[in-house]
């Protein structure tokens, strides 16, 4: 599959014209990470939007006194990070490849410019991003609930 075909197969390209897909593809490249390599580092500029094609990525946070804690794992067809979308464009977490990982990497600056210039593209990308965010927030709420803990009053 060519890079162009790879981009066109993404959810946000459904309903977009050929030229728009071409512009999106122009922001993209395929990037591979070895096991143990970081996709994102906390506090670093969030200059790339990654979609995992193959492999597994851990989202991690350094906690004082506890070291690096893994918050969640990201798998194929899932997005890594959204700090690239909103100022100050700084990564909030580390993203570590725990297996050899292949990604579709979109350069954030031209992608943002394209989304601004062409609201149809902007809306298409944003719909996918919001659905990802909504899913992550829901998961996060369940994690916070600690559903496997003994019922209150029996701890």
């Amino acid at each position, binding site marked *: 599959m060519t890079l162009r075909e790879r981009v066109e197969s993404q959810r946000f390209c459904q309903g977009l014209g050929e030229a728009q897909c071409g512009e999106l593809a122009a922001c993209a490249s395929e990037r591979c990470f070895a096991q143990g390599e970081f996709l994102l580092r906390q506090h670093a500029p969030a200059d790339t939007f990654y979609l995992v094609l193959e492999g597994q990525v851990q989202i991690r946070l350094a906690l004082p006194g506890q070291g690096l804690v893994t918050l969640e794992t990201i798998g194929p067809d899932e997005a890594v990070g959204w700090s690239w979308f909103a100022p100050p464009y700084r990564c909030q977490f580390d993203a570590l490849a*725990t297996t050899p990982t292949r990604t579709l990497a979109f350069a954030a600056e031209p992608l943002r410019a394209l989304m601004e210039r062409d609201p149809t593209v902007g809306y298409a990308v944003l719909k996918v991003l919001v659905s990802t965010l909504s899913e992550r927030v829901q*998961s996060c709420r369940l*994690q916070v609930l600690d559903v496997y803990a003994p019922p209150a009053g029996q701890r």
Partner: protein
Amino acid sequence: MSAPAEPTLPAPYRIVARRQDSADVFTWTVEPLGEHAPTFLPGQFNMLYAYGIGEVPVSISSAAAGEPLLHTIRAVGSVTRPMAALPVGTVIGLRGPYGTAWPLAEAEGGDLVIVAGGLGLAPLRPAILGALARRAQFGRLCLLYGTRSPADVLFADQLAAWRARGDLELRVTVDRATPDWTDEVGVVTRLIARAGFDPARTTAFVCGPEIMMRFAGEALLRRGVPAAAIHLSLERNMKCAVGYCGHCQLGPHFICRDGPVLAWPRLAGLLDVAEL
């Protein structure tokens, strides 16, 4: 299913082995003192009676055939905590089996997705073993298991053996990882989108905390699994276990008699009512 002749009369059983599965979960192997040895179906439960302490419903975690009778119990309440301290050799009362079973036969011919949360893996174990025993009758077989932390993973040896078979997609996730944990992290519902199955021809069995089952059911529906093909095992305060007392009532259902395994359409609107 072999219905008990005297549905409220416990038969004496001896605890012949005890295994500590995690900090607060243990498994008893029990054997009848007499001839009481009823057959059961995956998903059914027994009422276990610790004499002088009390009686609780516990799902059967052994294979329906070829294994001694196993019950996996969490030491969490006023009955199960003292139960955890009972030594091997103690005689307990057992009555059952009760309730509905996982519809394994209905699932044959299609894919089977099993979603387990925490101790919910125990009532699903007989179904998994049943499916593996008739592996050729199923398409893809996925086990998605989520629990609190690596220390809470149940049946770890068994999970490793299942993974090694190569004909079962096993995904294990924890809500809270430790630095040495190499498997997935996050809630079990996230695994539903990742697993390889054909939603339209999939049957799903789900067991775990009720809130987890609700979100798992919704994730399965989003993926395209038909509502009628999603089956949940409910837990309620069961007392009589035969539909007399009403303690386990959930809306129009007596969970002991109509459940514990119920299809999603029968539970629609019941899982998000705070008072039920």
